[in-house]
């Protein structure tokens, strides 16, 4: 028999709040996380805004020696992990087996040392190309071992392992915008298989730096509504023109059901389905028919032993790019058939922006809260219906509804599709 996996703790640091309850009340209250980019001077960039974590400081008890060089997204993750760990009742020592507890994150690379890295490209520039000898001379004077090493995508895992004292299986996957959904799915598999009894999972990311912004702008992926910032992200709306780059971290504690029950852990929801697929279509675009996305959803349903009729609500990837939202709609129709118009669908990215690698875990947290409170968080900024997106997107106002089973989608650049299904316990 399959070992069952339950969520026993959650924590987050997001543009709409530095803890789970603040995020939730902000989403239901109609707040927006979007604003003019303040982390650097983006005033001449085609997109001048983003969805930033504001006013965040690492809690005093975490700001000690071993975390003092931690990068921006690692700091988000540390605070989120501590919140999740305490919520799960694992804050006191001796209540978990470190060798049976692991970490599986979908975290992004750390922010680069922009100022020094860029000045080296200027000062080390030769005839039409980099003079690497000159570059090297300057680099050893300017670059810091900490700033460089903390950029490695496994360093968030390293900091969390140190803080929580776990010694079990530890992974980081970086499948772009699907990463933390995939991490949660794989962490679930690790507990099911028996490699661990508890897993800390989720993700952290910040690409709000000049090259991150540049990269997405060059791909024409971002919204350019500099004159209407709070309403720039409008998933499924006809006038959507791109996603809004966000940052943050969300962490969940997963445990094997029997052990969680035996220690009286809070059981917030059960993860019953996980599906992963690849579009194998193009590096730039999703498969326009949404076959890959549909395959991920179907695999998750099959894993859960459910049919589409069992799903009460879909937390969409819903990025607010022209392509994603219509492809996702098509994929949902392919999977849900006649029932597609009756399933409420929403994307919190309208209010929150796109947290990239951290997006999926953040959205999973909102799914767990939706289950708890019987409220669907709305799709913000939805005004003009798109004939290609003709389903029920729960526009602008939260909806009260009894919820038992929820599906959450994440799709990454490069055609990476991951879907999770959770259920009330």
């Amino acid at each position, binding site marked *: 028999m399959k070992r069952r996996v339950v969520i026993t703790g959650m924590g987050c640091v997001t543009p709409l709040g530095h803890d789970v309850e603040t995020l939730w009340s902000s989403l239901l209250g109609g707040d927006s996380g979007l604003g003019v980019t303040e982390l650097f*001077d983006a*005033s*001449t960039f085609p997109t001048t805004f983003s969805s930033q974590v504001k006013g965040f400081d690492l809690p005093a008890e975490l700001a000690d020696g*071993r975390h003092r060089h931690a990068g921006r997204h690692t700091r988000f993750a540390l605070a989120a992990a501590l919140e999740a760990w305490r919520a799960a009742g694992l804050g006191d020592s001796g209540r978990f087996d470190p*060798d049976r507890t*692991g970490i599986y994150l979908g975290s992004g*690379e750390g922010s680069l040392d922009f100022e020094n890295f*860029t*000045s080296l*490209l*200027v000062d080390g520039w030769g005839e*039409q*190309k*980099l003079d*690497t*000898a000159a570059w*090297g*001379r300057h*680099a*050893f004077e300017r670059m810091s071992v900490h700033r*460089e*090493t903390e*950029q490695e*995508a*496994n*360093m968030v*895992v*390293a900091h969390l*392992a140190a803080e*929580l*004292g*776990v*010694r*079990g*299986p*530890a*992974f*980081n*996957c*970086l*499948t772009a915008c699907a990463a933390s959904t995939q991490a949660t799915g794989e962490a679930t598999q690790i507990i099911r298989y028996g*490699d661990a009894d508890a897993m800390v999972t989720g993700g952290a990311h910040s690409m709000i730096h*000049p090259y991150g912004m*540049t*990269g*997405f702008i*060059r*791909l*024409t992926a971002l919204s350019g509504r500099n004159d209407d910032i709070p309403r720039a992200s409008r998933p499924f709306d006809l006038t959507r023109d791109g996603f809004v780059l966000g940052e943050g971290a969300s962490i969940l504690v997963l445990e094997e059901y029997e052990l969680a029950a035996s220690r009286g852990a809070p059981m917030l929801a059960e993860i019953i389905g996980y599906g*992963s*697929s*690849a*579009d*194998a*279509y*193009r*590096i730039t675009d999703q498969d326009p028919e949404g076959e890959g996305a549909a*395959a991920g959803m179907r695999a998750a349903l099959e894993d859960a032993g459910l049919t589409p009729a069992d799903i009460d609500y879909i937390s969409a990837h819903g990025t607010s790019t022209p392509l994603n939202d219509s492809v996702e709609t098509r994929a949902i129709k392919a999977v849900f058939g006649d029932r597609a118009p009756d399933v409420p669908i929403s994307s919190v990215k309208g209010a929150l922006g796109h947290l990239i690698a951290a997006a999926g875990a953040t959205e999973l947290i909102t799914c767990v809260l939706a289950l708890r409170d019987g409220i669907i968080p709305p799709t913000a900024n939805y005004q003009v219906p798109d004939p290609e997106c003709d389903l029920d997107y729960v526009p602008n106002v939260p909806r009260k509804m009894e919820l038992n089973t929820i599906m959450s989608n994440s799709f990454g*650049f490069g055609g*990476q599709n991951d879907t999770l299904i959770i259920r009330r316990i």
Partner: protein
Amino acid sequence: MARRRVVVTGLGVVTPAGTGIEALFANLLAGARAIKRIDLFDPSTFPCQIGGQLNGFSARDFVPKSYRKAVKVMARDIEIAVVAADLAVRDSGIATKGIDNGAPDIESSRLGCNIGAGLMCADLDELGAAVNTSVTDGAFDIVAWGREGMNNLTPLWLLKYLPNMLSCHVTIIHAAKGPSNTITCGEASGHLAVGEAARTIVRGAADAAIAGGAESKVNPMGLLRLCLLNRAVTTGNDSPGEAVRPMDVRHAGSAVGEGGGLLILEDRDRADRRGARIYAEVVGFGAACDPGGVDYLQATDGNIGGAMRAALRDAGIAPAQVGLIIPNGTAVAAEDAAEARAIREVFGEDAGRIPSVPLTGSMGNLFAGAGGVDLAVAAMALHRQTIPPAVNGDEAAADCPLNLPAEPIEGGLDYALCVSATVGGQSGAVILKRYEP
């Protein structure tokens, strides 16, 4: 129902010591020393100027004609993965879309992909050319960059450097639409990717998978980072071939390398049905981490002991049954000592008997590319019943009392274990078994 079993039916390697498993294995048996002075860029102001580089390397000749244009948007890491995948798939005899567009013989949705990747370095010439259009009074001018400068970058610039683009290109070429992942845990990435991919087959989510890792660190940023961590050998610039000496008494540091290895993992029944050549069976996987790994200026073992014990448990074998260990063997003295200590703790006195063969002495540190190469070599060793020698392992260091074979060893090999940990403290171990029809 019996647990599904996973076998290795294809091997694809791209390394400084040889491309293609036959070439690499022959070179390793001959004790190939492929570390040379770096000439992909001028390293003269770096304290370490050597590495394991691929010369004259391009993916152009390894992709379907229709896909050749895409090579322009591949970072070197991606090119390595694409070539390794091509070699592995061909070696397996499976006809994917990339091999035979007319009649693929595997259902796309049942073919997975799991490729370990590193932190890719932007092409500094390309980025530098754009950055230097936005310089005012000798300094970068972000206002000019936002207005004009950034337009000098190709629109797809970002997609060259996303870690999941290795698996993305490979899945497109081979129409691999099954479970797909990208593990980014440094030198443990390839081991973790292969272990995880094997589990997807065990649980029935896929029938076959392309799994392993690829990375290039032979670039200014890769070399800088290794040097900043004091992991680079700085005493071997005049004798590159002998400079990297894993577990040897004169080990004095590591060197950057580039390369990758991808394995075709396949459900054993499927492989048997189609009469595939089977190199080995994947019988054990374990992963672990060391909470002390965050102090990356200190050498730690990444809790490889935990990973190896978990893999041995998963395989249901005793440590003494292992006949070959391929460790990380960075050749950084403190890291070697920590790794050897962990191996001694798990294997006891047998650690001094079982051949340990780190590949880094021959080709440098391939980081995310290492695990796939190590596992491909281990699979080949089981298949050929021949263990290659430990290059530059002339005399084991006192605190690394392992058996570093000076010559190839023939016969009697039932199980091989590959293990690695990375800076930051994650580790993975995979055990392969000799295939018995």
